[in-house]
């Protein structure tokens, strides 16, 4: 009996992943053919709440409204267009095979499963690959100005972890253009009355009545007012939790609160230890830094990564002769070279920097060099491809990448873990759905480049509109609890108390201070490389710091108007609780896979060593009343279409 079976037998929650019958390639079609439908006239009788207006949220809200559902959309930003999807630079994958280089739905599916180190649910990933084709069509029809070739057809570039060119892009601003596309569809529905938009409104709690998600409690960030909203279904498209690290490439306001509050109300949180470290970020330059900036992975298409072979090198990059440079990705992974997947490139950089071969004033980076590309393609072509990224680098680092190589270093970027969802993207709480980065479903233990945009749009445009209908159809004619239900009132009261409590502590340290300290612990012990010892230490440090947070926090101002310090306090509180779960999950997973690298489990040459016998499962955690005592549930992963294999990019 494997560990997976053993744990499965002890599950406290029945985890039904609802994977449809049939071969993996037919599952989605089978699902669509057999799902229940809601008559167009009846759709307007259903209200769906969508929290978050990024790619997944905006596209879901727009499509549901187009279908005729009443949609209430919530964003804590001032406008739906601000969501962090906007910052994605590189591109979006689509199995179009426009380049005729042998791409197919199956190949994208396979690459994604393999890239995820065989820790994703096959059926979900295949569906993602299938609809990737429709996403490109949809976005072009909406006016997304993807890059084109001179003949007028769409251009593609290649991306890490793939041997075909299937990535569609709009300069270095693909996320922006896709989000604006979705935002425009969303805005159209706001204009037409299909969506009611609540801006600057942050989700504070989920209300579950008789086992079903019945609505949410939100705080109006401008007035501090706490209000309830009831619906037939609630979609959380609230992004990932990368800001648990404090320093990450996430936007400043990204947080885990929505997912975490759902978790506390019974939704399982899956694989929290699967966090992605992006290899190409600008290294930290000083201690006051608030966030790290990502340079698109697409730079690795033409840039060459190297470090000086001599750890005591003091010369400028240009003056170091070829033979004293170590192009380590090309050396270690000859077939993928500089395009090795993110986790692999990141760890390789970390190992060299740890050995003292880092570059830059803090010796905390590696070079990403374009001199060869400029020689081969010419300055103009390089400028055409990466001009805006180079400018951005120069603004931040104060160096010109056409002349000196960029310095890059890995940073927390994306979180593969998230709310556990079934094939319908429904959590274990009926009526509560999670989409985009907020769920765990498609990327396994590591996400490939240009797949996040694909997943967000797939969930929002092409999956949820079907599966929500299937969930709502049986509810026709049944009455749903309204916001005067005692559960709503209780949740509102709890929310008020929670925020008043932060104000009442009146300690000495700001929420930012705690966030920074929390982030340091998580980065040091639950970052790119984890050890049993370190994780245990983190699990001692975190509760102690959390205790200090609860007694020494200082939040100035009031709760009845715009108060960013108070908002932050609530978010940091939830990050503390999540941080403990991340470490616990990382400690429990005694293997290395994808973004989760336990140094005890590695091959002789330092590659991740999976344990498929015991850990080929999803770890879905149930809230146990205290962040330190969660209950583990597992969903075994079965692979029918792909063979479990060692992930090699050599």
């Amino acid at each position: 009996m494997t560990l997976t079976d053993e744990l499965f037998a002890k599950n406290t929650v029945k985890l039904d992943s609802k994977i449809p019958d049939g071969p993996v390639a037919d599952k989605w079609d089978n699902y669509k053919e057999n799902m229940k439908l809601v008559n167009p006239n009846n759709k307007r009788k259903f209200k769906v709440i969508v929290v978050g207006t990024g790619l997944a949220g905006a596209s879901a809200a727009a499509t549901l409204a187009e279908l005729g559902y009443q949609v209430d959309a919530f964003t804590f930003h001032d406008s739906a267009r601000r969501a962090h999807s906007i910052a994605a630079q590189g591109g979006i994958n689509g199995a179009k095979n426009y380049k005729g280089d042998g791409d197919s739905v199956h190949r994208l599916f396979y690459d994604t499963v393999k890239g995820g180190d065989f820790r994703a649910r096959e059926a979900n990933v295949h569906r993602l690959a299938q609809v990737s084709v429709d996403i490109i069509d949809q976005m072009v029809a909406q006016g997304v100005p993807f890059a084109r070739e001179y003949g007028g057809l769409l251009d593609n570039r290649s991306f890490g972890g793939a041997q075909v060119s299937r990535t569609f892009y709009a300069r270095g601003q693909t996320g922006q253009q896709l989000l604006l596309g979705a935002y425009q569809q969303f805005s159209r529905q706001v204009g037409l009355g299909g969506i009611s938009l609540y801006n600057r409104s942050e989700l504070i709690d989920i209300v579950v009545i008789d086992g079903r998600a019945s609505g949410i409690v939100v705080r109006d960030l401008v007035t501090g007012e706490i209000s309830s909203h009831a619906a037939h279904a609630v979609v959380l498209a609230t992004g990932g939790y990368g800001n648990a690290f404090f320093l990450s490439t996430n936007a400043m306001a990204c947080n885990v609160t929505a997912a975490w509050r759902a978790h506390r109300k019974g939704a399982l949180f899956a694989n929290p230890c699967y966090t992605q470290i992006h290899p190409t970020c600008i290294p930290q330059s000083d201690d006051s830094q608030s966030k790290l900036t990502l340079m698109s992975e697409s730079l690795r298409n033409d840039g060459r990564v190297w470090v000086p072979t001599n750890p005591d090198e003091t010369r400028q990059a240009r003056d170091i002769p070829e033979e004293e440079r170590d192009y380590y990705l090309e050396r270690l992974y000859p077939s993928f070279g500089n395009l090795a997947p993110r986790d692999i490139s990141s760890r390789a950089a970390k190992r060299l920097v740890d050995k003292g071969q880092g570059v830059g004033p803090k010796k905390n980076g590696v070079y990403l060099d374009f001199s060869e590309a400029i020689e081969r393609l010419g300055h103009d072509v390089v400028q055409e491809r990466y001009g805006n990224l180079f400018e951005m680098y120069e603004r931040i680092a104060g160096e010109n990448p056409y002349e000196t190589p960029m310095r890059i270093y890995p940073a927390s970027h994306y979180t593969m873990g998230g709310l556990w969802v079934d094939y319908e993207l429904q959590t274990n709480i009926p009526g509560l759905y999670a989409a985009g980065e907020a769920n765990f479903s498609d990327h396994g233990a590591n996400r490939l480049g240009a797949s996040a945009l694909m997943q967000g749009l797939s969930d929002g445009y092409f999956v949820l509109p079907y599966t929500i209908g299937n969930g709502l159809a049986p509810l026709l004619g049944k009455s749903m609890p309204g916001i005067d239900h005692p559960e709503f009132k209780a949740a509102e009261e709890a929310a008020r108390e929670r925020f008043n409590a932060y104000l009442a502590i009146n300690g000495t340290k700001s929420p930012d201070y705690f966030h920074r300290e929390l982030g340091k612990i998580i980065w040091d012990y639950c970052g790119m490389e984890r050890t049993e010892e370190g994780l245990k230490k983190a699990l001692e440090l975190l509760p102690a710091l959390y205790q200090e947070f609860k007694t020494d926090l200082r939040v100035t101002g009031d709760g009845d108007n715009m108060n960013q310090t108070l908002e932050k306090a609530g978010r940091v509180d939830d990050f503390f609780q999540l941080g403990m779960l991340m470490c616990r999950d990382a400690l429990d997973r005694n293997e290395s896979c994808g973004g989760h690298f336990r140094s005890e489990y590695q091959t002789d040459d330092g590659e991740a060593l999976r344990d498929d016998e015991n850990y080929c499962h999803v770890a879905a955690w149930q809230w146990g009343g205290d962040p330190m005592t969660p209950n583990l549930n597992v969903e075994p992963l079965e692979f029918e279409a792909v063979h479990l294999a060692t992930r090699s990019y050599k």
Partner: protein
Amino acid sequence: MAQVVTSKRGPVTGTATHQRKKRPFLLDLYSTAVGKKYAMGLSGIAMMGFVLFHMIGNLKIYAGAADLDHYAHFLQTLLYPLAPKGWVLWILRGGLISMLFLHLHAAWSLTRLNRHARPVKYQSKRDYQIANFASRTMRWSGIIVLGFIVWHLLDLTFGVVNSETGKMITHPGDEESVKAVYASIVYSFQRTPVALFYVVANILLGIHLFHGTWSIFQSLGWNNPRFNNWRRGFATGFASLVVVGNVSFPIAVMAGIVG
């Protein structure tokens, strides 16, 4: 110093469902700020045409009194005997006046709109990057030029402030007498303050024309990568041409070249 409008909280929906007002299409166009800019641009073109031909016509002053006075007479009897004497000139003047009114009305209502768009000014000093003296003083240069036009009409058209205006003269070789425009101009510019006012007002007119001319391309949507680089140059050239021509008259009179 509160910005008076406050943000209304609560859900936003159905913002694009209101029925748009139906109006006759010219009014419809003019009711928008973009439409008013069209009106300003088109009336501006009409008046630019006027100032250019006015200046060119007046160059006759260098050809002597008889030539200038004959030119004035020609304008007054334009298309005569097809049309009664003076009629065509008055029709042209009528057109010009309506263009002026359109220009003024559009400017006035746009100014009101703009004031309303920022009821509370910046409390610290603005550091303008591109906006130049011309663009930022359009309102004032316009008003001063308008004041000058009134004076100019009282001076050289109606003779309220010029005793020579309206007098008749019979040039050698002529059978009938014509208005002594030349003499009236010379009389006017021999008064130094009048000449100075004329010079200053024309420089302001030039500044107004410079920004106005360049603006026309933008406001009327005449944007074409092939000639975009020429727009500023054209505006500078046109404004300078008008100013140099116009300003030469009082200078010539005061320097004794004309007189």
